């Protein structure tokens, strides 16, 4: 078997329903699997001729998928759920069978806000991660003096960034809706908005956190790894209608991207990955900024000294349903959805673990045999035994050491003091 799977191995070609594909991406570090799969020939090896389309906004990604202008796209993981539920826009049922990686976001504040936080609560600012209590002290002072509330930005309301930022704020006693304003700013405009004072801080994916540090207008105070270890971030999204019409093409695409993610995660391929994605047509950020971004991202085993993002290790490509259910709890928590949700049904309809397994099977890589896992229960590396062969997993702890049982989402939700849930907290029968 090993000789067959060596470098020269050609995958048996399924009868692809479609071989010419147009895939959308947004210029961020975690577009790397798509870019590498194209540039290094992983798509071609699986019979796919892929054109990559750089998208200007997340709303466009969703609309272009629905209009059929894109076959598949890099998406913010919660977007697939929001689009399916019709939250924030028209309902477009989406499907994902692949996670594009874990971690990589950071909370950055402006130099002036950093100065105020340091002045008002020096001990807090010496801690890592910085607790939001320092920010709360600044917000309280502003309120006493009748100043307008500060503004933080995320790239899109249905994003891990938004939920991670809110989680950090709420854990430190800040009400993300009443005490400050969270607004949407496109990633490429974040640094400028921070520099000119339109916003006072943001939570965004790399390389834009590193970019602020590079241009000296902002300072990163929290890596979201410390809010939720190995938190999911982007996924490969397709519409449900597309997935139903193109099952073989879908599997081939997922297969090529698993291979690309595995290739990227090898230390010896890091530098080449950086140069490939730093190209003008992909992520137009200088290589040294991208390097800095990658150096800031922790590895799956929690060793921050290893300069590595997490694209493959620790089952980073697997679409865990527990991730989907956690995102749904956050949408409820912050009032983004106003009707009861059938957590099990929605997560199973959108997060398609079985497609992942079928796609991965010919690659002979270890694959989880369970669809969900408890989150927040491991604060150290652990071994997932319920897999085709055991998988070394990274920690999955939350900032406040809470645990999340995906079978009890409502109990989890009810335990939070700060919640803006407007939907009846029950599961419809």
């Amino acid at each position, binding site marked *: 078997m090993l000789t067959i799977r060596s470098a020269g191995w050609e995958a048996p070609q399924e009868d692809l329903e479609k071989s010419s594909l147009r895939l959308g991406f947004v210029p961020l570090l975690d577009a790397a699997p798509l870019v590498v799969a194209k540039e290094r020939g992983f798509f071609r090896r699986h019979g796919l001729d892929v054109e990559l389309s750089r998208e200007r*906004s997340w709303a466009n990604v969703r609309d272009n998928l629905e209009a059929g202008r894109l076959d598949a796209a890099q998406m913010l993981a919660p977007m697939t759920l929001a689009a399916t539920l019709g939250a924030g826009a028209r309902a477009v049922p989406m499907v994902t069978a692949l996670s594009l990686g874990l971690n990589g976001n950071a909370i950055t504040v402006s130099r002036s806000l950093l100065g105020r936080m340091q002045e008002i609560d020096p001990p807090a600012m010496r801690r890592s991660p910085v607790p939001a209590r320092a920010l709360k002290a600044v917000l309280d002072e502003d309120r006493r003096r009748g100043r307008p509330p500060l503004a933080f930005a995320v*790239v899109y309301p249905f994003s891990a960034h938004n939920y991670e930022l809110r989680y950090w704020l709420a854990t430190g006693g800040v009400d993300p809706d009443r005490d400050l304003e969270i607004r949407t700013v*496109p990633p*490429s405009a974040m640094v400028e908005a921070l520099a000119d004072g339109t916003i006072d801080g943001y939570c965004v994916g790399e390389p834009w956190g590193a970019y602020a540090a590079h241009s000296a207008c902002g300072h990163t105070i929290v890596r979201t790894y410390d809010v939720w270890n190995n938190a999911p971030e982007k996924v490969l999204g397709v519409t449900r209608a597309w997935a139903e019409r193109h099952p073989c093409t879908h599997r081939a695409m997922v297969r090529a991207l698993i291979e690309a993610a595995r290739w990227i995660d090898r230390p010896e391929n890091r530098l080449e990955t950086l140069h490939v994605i730093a190209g003008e047509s992909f992520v137009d950020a200088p290589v040294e900024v991208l390097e800095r971004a990658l150096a800031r991202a922790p590895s799956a085993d929690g060793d921050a000294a290893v300069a590595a993002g997490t694209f493959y290790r620790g089952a980073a490509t697997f679409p865990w349903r527990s991730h989907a259910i956690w995102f749904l709890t956050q949408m409820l928590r912050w009032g983004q959805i106003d009707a009861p949700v059938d957590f099990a049904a929605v997560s199973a309809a959108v997060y398609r673990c079985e497609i992942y397994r079928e796609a991965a099977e010919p690659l002979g890589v270890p694959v989880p045999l369970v669809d969900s896992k408890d989150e927040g229960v491991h604060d150290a590396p652990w071994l997932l035994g319920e897999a085709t062969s055991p998988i070394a997993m990274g920690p999955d702890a939350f900032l406040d050491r809470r645990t999340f049982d995906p079978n009890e989402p409502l109990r989890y939700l009810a335990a939070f003091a700060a919640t803006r849930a407007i939907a009846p907290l029950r599961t419809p029968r």
Partner: protein
Amino acid sequence: MSRLTQKVPPSPAARDLRVLIVDRTAARSHALREALEREGYVALIPPPGRCDLLRCVRELEPDVIIVDMDSPDRDIVEDSRRVFLEDPRPIVMFVDESDSASIRAAVDAGVASYVVKGASPERVRPVVEVALARFRAFQSLKSELDDARNSLAERKLVERAKGLLMERRSCSEDEAYRMLRRMAMSRGQRLAEVARNVIEMATLL
């Protein structure tokens, strides 16, 4: 293209409609503004250079927003819907001519309304009209559905909260209802939300 060019008579209500144009191509947005103003619209363009688009939307309170589909500002425009949560506004998109085939599919699916870039500004008015008409139809359908879905559950909450208030404050049903409404108005919350809080508080105490 028939859908984009068909004549729609301007409704009298359309006269004072405020249209915000979010497009960094100055020549195009100015031509569009002139065309819209000739038709009796109030056409608004954010100040040149970098601006706080969310604040613009908030302060200008447009009835319709036209946005360049290729602009990263689209996500801000989409998020600005939160500003008008109770009264959302239609969004019309500028797209490239080359995309027209797939865009037609999107228009037919009712996703949104689009203006093809390079189309003469006169063509824009009918699109704005169609967008508004479709949007209103969609909203009324949606609100009917929402009402049907929510009203029963919400009425139950309000009834229960009223009962609790009547019992604890020994007041009449009318007074209890007025109390709930006052709380809702002062907190900027929906009645059902306030009712839920009352019930939660009551079960805690």
